[in-house]
């Protein structure tokens, strides 16, 4: 059997590079979407409300601005 150890290592480097790029992309996106700012804690209150149709008016302040 041929040993693919070195190609697999280069593939692993490439894969880790992709993951790093992805992680940085999503991290900066999270900064843009306010996860680290003054609205960082909104989500934890919203999740306590249920999302059934009649509850829409209650969760309006936390709703995405469309």
């Amino acid at each position, binding site marked *: *059997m041929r*040993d*693919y*150890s070195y*190609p*697999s*290592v280069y*593939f692993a480097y490439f*894969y*880790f590079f992709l*993951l790093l790029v*992805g*992680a940085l992309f999503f*991290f900066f996106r*999270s900064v843009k*979407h*306010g*996860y*680290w700012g003054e*609205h*960082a*804690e*909104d*989500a*934890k*209150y*919203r*999740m*306590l409300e*249920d*999302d*059934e*149709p*009649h*509850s829409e008016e209650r*969760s309006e302040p*936390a*709703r*995405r*601005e469309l």
Partner: protein
Amino acid sequence: MQSESTISAGEIPVSEAARYNESLHEDTTAKLFLVSSITYFFIVGIVALMIAAKFVWPELLGTVQYLTYGRLRPLHVNGMLFGWLLAADMGLMYYVVPRLCGVKLWSEKLGVATAALWNFIILGAVVSTIMGWNQGWEYAELPMFLDVLVVIAWVMFGANIFMTVANRKYTQMYVTIWYCLGTILWTAFVYLTGNFAALFATGVNQANLNWMYVHNAVGLIFTPVGLAIAYYFIPKVSNSPLHSHKLSMIGFWSLAFVYVWTGAHHMIHGPISQWLQTIAIVFSVMLLVPVWAVVYNFFATMRGQWDQMRDNVPLKFLMSGVVFYLLTCFQGPMHSLRSVNAIVSKTDWIPGHAHMAVLGAFSFFAIAGCYYVVPRIFRRKLYSDSLANWSFWLFLIGGVGFFVTLWLGGFWQGWQWNNPAIPFIDTVIALQPVWIVRFFSGVLMFGGIATFAYNILATMVGSGTESTKMAAATA
């Protein structure tokens, strides 16, 4: 009728119950995954007992090849990991994610097809492990055609969840969704590496890839999905907002950065580079950062709420799971240190540690989720609060007995193995008392599984009458 201040296991708060009669969620997929996973939990629990019994009575079940340790052990491991825990976690994600996104599941039909395929895979795994069709790799025993089906099922699951998240009402995602999406991506990476990429390497590189897979099967599959569940259900069950969403994000990103590098600590003192061992040790110790970020957040959430632990069974499971999570994640970094590893590696310490992670922490989270979710999606009161409480104490006492016995036994075993004057067979004989306690602890844990499974399945099939239905509870 109970007052709101004494909400019991799995019961919808009376003031909230009416809402569930007009739910926009179908939950068919969640139901299918939960029914099947709990059934597998019970069946594979019997296999676990048989294995534990074989340690004490090695002649048990004779020489029937299908019932030998070598066949039953992979069945137990794969059955518990993929038949019970991952399937239950997937079922809970099908419940949680649409609710957190404020929309219906993207495709209920795709979800049902995923559930059908998943069950086919699990049944195939049962047959193949019993027949001995085994690739011979830890946690990657299943034959190739089942591995391919797992990948297909995972793509179906991932597509459904990602599309649901893409259609969400809210820009900001609660931390549970972050962990869920992370689980989907990391599982793809970890599973492909362990089951396909490892086949293209040889020797020690192959072993290293396998251990990367084994460790991250727990670290990047069951940990993130387990934490996703805990982050959802601890605030929900205790009706208290999470202490800090910002801290939960720090925990998520630090876990994402740290976990993937730790796999090589399974090969410390083995034939791999010292620098690789050192990197694995350093990252293993760094794991304390995300772990403490998570555990502190959960404990701070419970500030002023501990009195709920008296009669809130899901919360008992959740917070006991958090304690086990802390303990197991303290053990991990410590036994990756070279000096400790020289004693505990390959001993009974390791199954003690692994069971505390997979059963004590992540299965406790999943059980709590089932107790919370099943009465809601089936719109029935939980069959028995008392039985739920029994299941908790059976799991807890049996689990602690199992974990502690194996830690102590493992240390003892390691010290003996480090003494070349002691013949190996003597170290086996010396462990007999440990394995007896292990077996009886297993009996208690199986009692927990049986009471949990009976309670949930009785709730599902509606062994109650109209008076026990949730609609009636609001009247």
